[in-house]
């Protein structure tokens, strides 16, 4: 188990403040946050490139806060892959093994083994400059794993790859993790990667680890509005709760459970359903709305609604927008389930 305890460090424009979390063995841990949140610095501190100004790092019960990076044995893969340009792919992967003074035969065996797992056997004699992004990423991972590390630190591993390469690598990553029994910390700003790969996720905002939990927990129950807004809950409304009912600006919204006093709620725009008629269904909330604006965002429509002075945003597909005939001025009904409402006490 890796544990960070109240780690603090600043470097250039970035800083980490009081960052604490645990990564268990076998975990695929996603550090999710917008760019500039300090995610890379966090990974560099775990790798030992930078030491914290305050706080401690515990690895398998030992304090490694100030241990040199070469003594940690973590496989660190930075965002640009950082393949050694003056070595072949083979030499890159063998680099860590030569330091360990293995025999040439042994090195060759290990390199070929890991190369076959990562499907890069045909690249061994190539120079890094001739590799595609996806190939370079595999080589960088292979190089880290070759030293026998079971602990992989990935910095935005798919940031520079095209979508189809990313999809393939995501599927393969799952396989590698299982086959090699890895523990992974994976830093990213992509929800997709978090949802597809993560066992647990830590949301990093402004240098703080704002929430840590299973992917399902964090995505369905963001702990505060900042996290909610980062995770795409576009509708954040403030009002007075009285039991299961929230009143905001004269509009009444049904809550998933009982609250009292001033609260804020968050609803994802894609959880809002639009219809011309108030339809009978399991939806507890059905509000009369007027369309203010419609924006086509690459085939989907983002609809801005006015609900008695409150602004709501809904995301609908082209086909439903066309069917309902959505356009500014149109009156319609906006429905959402009570369970789609996330409540934060203000």
């Amino acid at each position: 188990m890796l544990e960070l305890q109240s780690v603090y460090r600043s470097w250039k424009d970035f800083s980490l403040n009081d960052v604490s979390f645990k990564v268990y063995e076998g975990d695929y841990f996603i550090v999710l946050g917008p760019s500039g949140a300090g995610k890379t610095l966090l990974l560099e501190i775990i790798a030992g490139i930078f030491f914290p100004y305050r706080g401690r790092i515990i690895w398998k019960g030992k304090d490694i806060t100030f241990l040199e990076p070469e003594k940690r044995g973590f496989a660190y893969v930075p965002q640009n892959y950082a393949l050694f340009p003056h070595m072949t792919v083979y030499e890159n992967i063998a680099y860590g093994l030569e330091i360990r003074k293995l025999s040439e035969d042994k090195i060759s065996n290990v390199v070929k083994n890991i190369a076959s797992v990562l499907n890069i056997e045909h690249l061994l004699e190539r120079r890094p400059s001739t590799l595609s992004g996806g190939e370079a990423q595999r080589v960088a991972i292979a190089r880290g794993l070759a030293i026998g590390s079971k602990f992989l630190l990935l910095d935005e591993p798919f940031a520079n790859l095209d979508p189809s390469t990313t999809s393939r690598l995501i599927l393969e990553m799952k396989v590698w993790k299982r086959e090699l029994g890895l523990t992974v910390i994976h830093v990213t700003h992509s929800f997709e990667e978090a949802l597809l790969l993560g066992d647990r996720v830590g949301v990093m905002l402004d240098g703080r680890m704002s929430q840590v939990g299973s992917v399902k927990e964090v995505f369905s129950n963001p702990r505060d509005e900042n996290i909610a807004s980062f995770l795409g809950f576009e509708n954040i409304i403030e009002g007075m709760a009285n039991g299961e009912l929230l009143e905001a600006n004269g509009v009444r919204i049904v809550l998933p459970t009982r609250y009292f006093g001033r609260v804020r709620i968050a609803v994802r725009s894609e959880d809002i359903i639009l219809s011309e008629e108030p339809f009978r269904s399991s939806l507890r909330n059905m509000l009369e709305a007027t369309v203010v604006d419609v924006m086509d965002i690459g085939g989907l429509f983002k609809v801005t609604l006015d609900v008695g002075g409150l602004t709501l945003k809904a995301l609908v597909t082209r086909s439903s927008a066309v069917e309902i005939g959505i356009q500014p001025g149109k009156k319609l009904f906006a429905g959402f389930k009570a369970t789609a409402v996330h409540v934060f006490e203000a």
Partner: protein
Amino acid sequence: MNKSKRDYFDYLFAGIGSVLIAYVLYPILTLFGEQIVDIGSLLKAFRDEVVLEALRNTLFTSLISTFLALILGVPLGYLLAKREFKGKALVQGIVDLPVVIPHSVVGIMLLLAFSRRILDSYTGIIMVMLFVSVSFVVNSSRDGFLAVDPKLEYVARSLGASKIRVFFTVSLPIAFHSIATGGVMAWARAVSEVGAIMVVAYYPKTAQVVVMEYFNNYGLAASRPIAVILMGLSLGAFALLRALIGRLSKSA
């Protein structure tokens, strides 16, 4: 960039540039040209023991000073590129000083500082050459190390390499081109120096001093052959390196 019918601006600049190129090239071509017409004096110079001895001295001292410049200059270039420390700007300023100190003053200074122990000795020549040329090595290697992505060094360390191993297996190989260029610039600068050497060590005679001496004692024509040989040596090595660097950067 653009083809325009009346591109006065580009023509004007190209014209001015051509004047400059001609100004640099004309004396060089004159020197070689006059010597080709008078090949006999060149052959005679090659049999002049004073000249040959002086060329050996120049080669010997300049190679040692370049070696010392590399040994002393590369680590400082590395620190200037890769570390933050108090007084870094001051250190950089001091590194640049030798370039701007008048050559005759350099000689006086070194004599004053190291007294007559270095007067008229190989040591003196080498110290002069080192003083005037070491900035090139420091600045070139600094630029070379600056171009080494720190992430490469981070990764190497995470793979188990100590700082010193990272330096020799990652930073140094990648910065090699810049360092080599700096080394050759330093060598050319060492060979080019004459003023400070004449102050510190008129003897043992170096080729650059012999050029001056032959000019002063026997006139322009007598100094020309050895000037041609010295410049041939300098330019030859310079061109060779340019080609080598070109080839290396293509293959990398």
